[in-house]
């Protein structure tokens, strides 16, 4: 029997900062101290506070250690595990209070406002051990559904809960299921969209890495509800840890008979297979995803017919996102009313956001729908680093839009975000401070969609490219006001005419930045300046001759030899050679170099 559990994050974030090495070191030190029988090391999924990784939690004390290094293992074992003295120096600072008390993790700003439903097991259980999932009521919902409920009751429960698709569009999940349920066919399919491609979004990856069984269980429930016996998870090959854990989970579930034939002796058959995506963004679109599963080139097709009628292999199919599935077993166990009690009138439950960009607590947060952006950024996210001012937040990645400071207090739900010109998207939330140029941001996302456009339809293939070119022209200071009009017209044209969601939403970053930051576009065009000082072609580095001491440091660090001058005399930058890398400004000790 173990008296202490050491939980180490094995998510992608902490793994890339060597958490596996920490696990190895801890096991070595624990063995050296003779504690192998008493202390268990568990590799878990993501705890959410990725900014402070690698993260370790030691129970029963609940000590939350952050930024742990492999070399800390010795001290942790000797002090904490052997002698019971918590290593204060490694504790997450916010948990250390005055008077040397240690505050509970759930009382810290980062966790206090969170409400974990989809992420409830992430960072708590070992995702590679089915027993631990079962210990926290795993597969109990599947058991309940198969033994106590009819398929129609399952659909009614999901419908009544108000659960909407977490992949971005927000279609009511129960309705999707009921459409597929009424269509008669000899074979139906349940698919899971784990092709999370938005730059900056990683909630689906974290769920798959931290709690893979919840997705399997929910898919089996969906299979029972619509009458399907086969499921497919379409997951990106770029998520090796998620793929690995899914493979283990499927194998264990089959061994336990929780996937396969005659589950719980009820005669219900259901199995799941993985399909790996090669990393095309368009394959996150439902028709392209199914075409890819069929073995064809991942291109979308027109709808209707909708997948509920003719989906995978021309059979009725439902496709839901990972996070959507992660909510389902809890809804079955705790009831539709419990789920519907969280959130706003039309958006029930919680939403996971991947916080990134200019924010202190980069990581994964789950909050009830209706939480304001201000609460997420200032309280949970810990504000913006270096005392900079908030400028905008981008939600929904390349399909979404930006939210300016004036809308910080809007409660976040599907409908409110659409109303202010953005969208929920899959949940990427990128925070931008005053040093961000909004034209440059729009250009960044357009560059992404140009790359990822599959090329099947003209509005998207040509339209995104032309929009990108105009944006590029603007950032170079070569555009006219006519170009801006043309850009806007093109945006609406592509939005209305593209074949699939990728093209239809591609103009959103431009439209929303135009809506809130049109003056920045105009400054680029008319005044030929970039107010944020980002666009290289529109700024100049200059040396203030009064402040320059002639130390030659800048000249020696300039990679292109654009700075000239003699020792102890003010230096000059040759702007025809300068590549605006900013190395000189970084090196100058006298603050003599400025950019504008």
């Amino acid at each position, binding site marked *: 029997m173990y008296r202490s559990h050491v939980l180490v994050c094995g998510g992608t974030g902490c793994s890339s900062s060597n958490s596996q090495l920490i696990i190895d070191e801890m096991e070595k030190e624990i063995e050296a101290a003779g504690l192998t029988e008493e202390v268990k090391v568990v590799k878990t999924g993501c705890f959410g506070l990725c900014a402070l990784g690698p993260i370790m939690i030691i129970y029963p004390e609940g000590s939350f250690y952050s930024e742990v290094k492999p070399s800390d293992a010795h001290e942790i074992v000797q002090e904490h595990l052997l002698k019971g003295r918590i290593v204060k120096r490694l504790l997450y600072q916010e948990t250390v209070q005055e008077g040397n008390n240690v505050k509970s993790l759930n009382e810290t700003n980062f966790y206090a406002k969170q409400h974990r439903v989809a992420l409830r097991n992430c960072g708590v259980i070992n995702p590679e051990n089915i027993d631990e999932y*079962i210990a926290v009521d795993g597969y109990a919902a599947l058991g309940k559904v198969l033994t106590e409920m009819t398929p129609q009751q399952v659909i009614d429960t999901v419908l009544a809960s108000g659960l909407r698709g977490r992949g971005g569009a927000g279609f009511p999940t129960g309705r999707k299921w009921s459409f597929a349920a009424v269509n008669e066919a000899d074979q139906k399919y349940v698919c899971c969209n784990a092709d999370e491609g938005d730059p900056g979004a990683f909630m689906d990856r974290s769920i798959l890495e931290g709690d893979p069984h919840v997705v399997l269980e929910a898919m089996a429930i969906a299979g029972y509800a619509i009458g399907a016996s086969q499921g497919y998870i379409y997951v990106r090959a770029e998520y090796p840890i998620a793929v690995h854990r899914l493979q283990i989970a499927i194998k264990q579930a089959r061994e336990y008979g929780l996937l396969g034939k005659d589950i719980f002796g009820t005669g219900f058959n259901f199995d799941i297979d993985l399909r790996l995506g090669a990393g095309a963004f368009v394959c996150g679109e439902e028709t392209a995803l199914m075409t890819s599963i069929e073995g064809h080139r991942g291109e979308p097709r027109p709808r209707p017919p909708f997948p509920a009628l003719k989906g995978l292999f021309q059979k009725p199919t439902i496709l839901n996102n990972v996070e959507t599935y992660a909510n389902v077993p809890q809804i079955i166990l705790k009831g539709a009313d419990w789920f519907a009690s969280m959130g706003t009138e039309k958006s029930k439950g919680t939403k996971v956001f991947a916080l990134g960009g200019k924010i202190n607590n980069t990581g994964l947060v789950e909050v009830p729908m209706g939480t304001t952006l201000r609460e997420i950024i200032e309280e949970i996210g810990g504000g913006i680093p270096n005392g900079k001012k908030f400028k905008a937040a981008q939600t929904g990645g390349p399909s979404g839009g930006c939210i300016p400071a004036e809308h910080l207090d809007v409660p976040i739900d599907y409908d409110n975000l659409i109303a202010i010109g953005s969208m929920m998207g899959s949940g990427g939330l990128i925070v931008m401070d005053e040093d961000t140029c909004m034209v440059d941001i729009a250009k960044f996302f357009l560059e992404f969609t140009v790359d990822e456009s599959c090329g099947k339809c003209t509005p998207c293939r040509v339209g995104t490219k032309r929009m990108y070119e105009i944006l590029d022209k603007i950032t170079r200071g070569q555009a006219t006001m006519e170009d801006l009009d043309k850009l806007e017209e093109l945006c609406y044209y592509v939005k209305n005419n593209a074949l699939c969601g990728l093209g239809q939403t591609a103009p959103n970053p431009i439209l929303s930045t135009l809506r809130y930051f049109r003056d920045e576009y105009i400054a680029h065009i008319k005044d030929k300046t970039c107010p944020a000082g980002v666009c290289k072609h529109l700024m100049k580095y200059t040396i203030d001759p009064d402040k320059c001491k002639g130390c030659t440091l800048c000249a020696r660090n300039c990679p292109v030899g654009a700075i000239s001058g003699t020792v102890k005399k003010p230096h000059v930058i040759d702007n025809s050679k300068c590549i605006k890398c900013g190395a000189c400004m970084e090196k100058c000790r006298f603050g003599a170099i400025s950019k504008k």
Partner: protein
Amino acid sequence: MKSLEELRAIRDRARTNVHLRKENSPDNIRVVVGMATCGIAAGARPVLTTFTDEVAKRGLQNVMVTQTGCIGLCQYEPIVEVYEPDGRVTTYVKMNPEKAVQVVNDHLVNGKVVSELTIGSIGTMK
């Protein structure tokens, strides 16, 4: 998996393995074993493992076994303190695995303090 009972059996067995990973609730009884150099030298380790094993064996989900440093009474080590939700603290001294079993039985399960093992009876202790 042929029945719900099978699933429940696995769940109950697995639960004892993960119940440790909960935020400590104020309703829990805390058993604190002194594990500084003095405690370890006096034999605190087998006392600690006995507590963990016994608590697990009896499935006492409301008991948390943990360690602490030296509290300054080195001559009475191994020392075990039991903190109850109502704020009551009992200090057991000169512990060994047999006494630990007795404390689990009488105190943790039946709520009866084993007074002959507490620091108060140190004068009469052998």
